[in-house]
């Protein structure tokens, strides 16, 4: 286990989201009223940054790009969402929020993301 302090509880008021960086790992914290969730800040659909597209109401996290939703209480996808969110274990101790971020969680398709377009210009047209 590698529990890291992510933020003070006051930094994520009830029914809100916050993005934080711990040891170079970006972590979203959702305060859904009855507790907290910690997860990577990317929608598992099209990697939309959930710090911009995410909305939290009534315990439901919604990505506004295509309205995929997840129930923060159960952690399950609902509605038209086709993929589950990955979650870090999270806990509150005194006034701080901690998450178990021993290793960055990445979605199956994101593990070797290509940030650099150089060198693959001819990918599709290569003989």
């Amino acid at each position: 286990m590698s529990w890291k302090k992510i933020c003070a509880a006051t930094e994520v008021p009830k029914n809100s989201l916050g993005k934080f960086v711990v040891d170079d790992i970006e972590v979203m914290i959702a305060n859904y009223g009855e507790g907290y969730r910690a997860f990577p800040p990317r929608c598992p659909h099209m990697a939309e940054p959930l710090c911009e597209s995410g909305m939290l109401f009534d315990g439901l996290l919604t990505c506004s790009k295509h309205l995929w939703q997840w129930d923060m209480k159960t952690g399950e996808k609902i509605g038209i969402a086709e993929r589950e969110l990955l979650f870090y274990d999270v806990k509150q101790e005194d006034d701080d929020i901690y998450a178990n971020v021993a290793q960055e969680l990445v979605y199956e398709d994101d593990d070797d993301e290509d940030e650099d377009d150089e060198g693959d210009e001819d990918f599709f047209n290569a003989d």
Partner: protein
Amino acid sequence: MKIQINARNRAYNFDDASGDKILSIGLNRAIDLPYECGSGTCGTCKARLISGKIIDQWPEAPGRKYLKRKKGEFLMCQCAAETDLVIEVESFVHTMEAGACVPAAIKGRVGSAKLLTADVMSLQIELEQTVDFDAGQFMLVQFPDVAGFRGWSMVNYQRHARMVEFVIKKKPDGDLSNWIFNNNCEDVEVELFGPLGGATFYSRLAKNILCIAGGSGIAGIMSILSRAAQDGYFSQYNGDVFFGVRTMADTFFLDELSEFRRQCGDNLNITIVLSEEDAPASAQTDYPQLVFERGYVHEVAGQNMEGRFENIRAYLAGPPPLVNGAIGVLLRARVTTDNIRYDKFS
């Protein structure tokens, strides 16, 4: 060429000799492939190349930022097959329902082009053949001297349409809008593909409707109002329309909206929302059928609709900040996502 599309639920196989883009070919075969803008921006139509060669017709498409290119991802709306292909689409893909308006390539000619405001133009395009579309849909349109298709929502609504009307906003860095505003468009021959888009209205919906639009986004809402008016929809259900622009000088379609209100009666309420100024007193005198308010259109809509969000279907159209703001208003009011419809073009 043989094309195989492996979706999460099943595979589709077909032959194609057109050389058209893969999205167009699939949709034209009533395969409901994932897409949103259809014009290279949103990334929704991404797929993965398993085998074969493709030609990317717009390598600079903004939607490529959503791709993992080392995994062979590409935009179906911009790529055509050069050889037999096997591709993979991550989502579930179904065939379109019977009676759906299946998209097709159509040729047309600009019949009229007229300014609605200093930077908004109405473009009417006469079609070589009739087309059926649903209220709220859009078409991709390409002009001969400007590369690429643009997605524009239809303003009108009728079955077997011989003409489609669009609203074009002049954008400072928009190649096509600049061309349209700086040239005589009449009689110019254009290519179209459509109809596209799922933010559609049907009279069998049997819900109150809420429309929140900004600027040229009112186009698709006009089509929805047209169909609803034709079907007498507002004799049974309520309609609330909020149309946001910056100033009174930016308003348009006020005569047409007034006519909808006259035709449909008290169950249809139309509010014009100005973000940068109060409406002059003359506005209310000139357009007694309409209500004028000041503010951000999604916020005004949220305040006006308080307590009236039940049994509602919401249609949103306009710039992304407006659509996102409106989604927030609707989610906060506990409108379920299946009752929030919009086509994001970004």
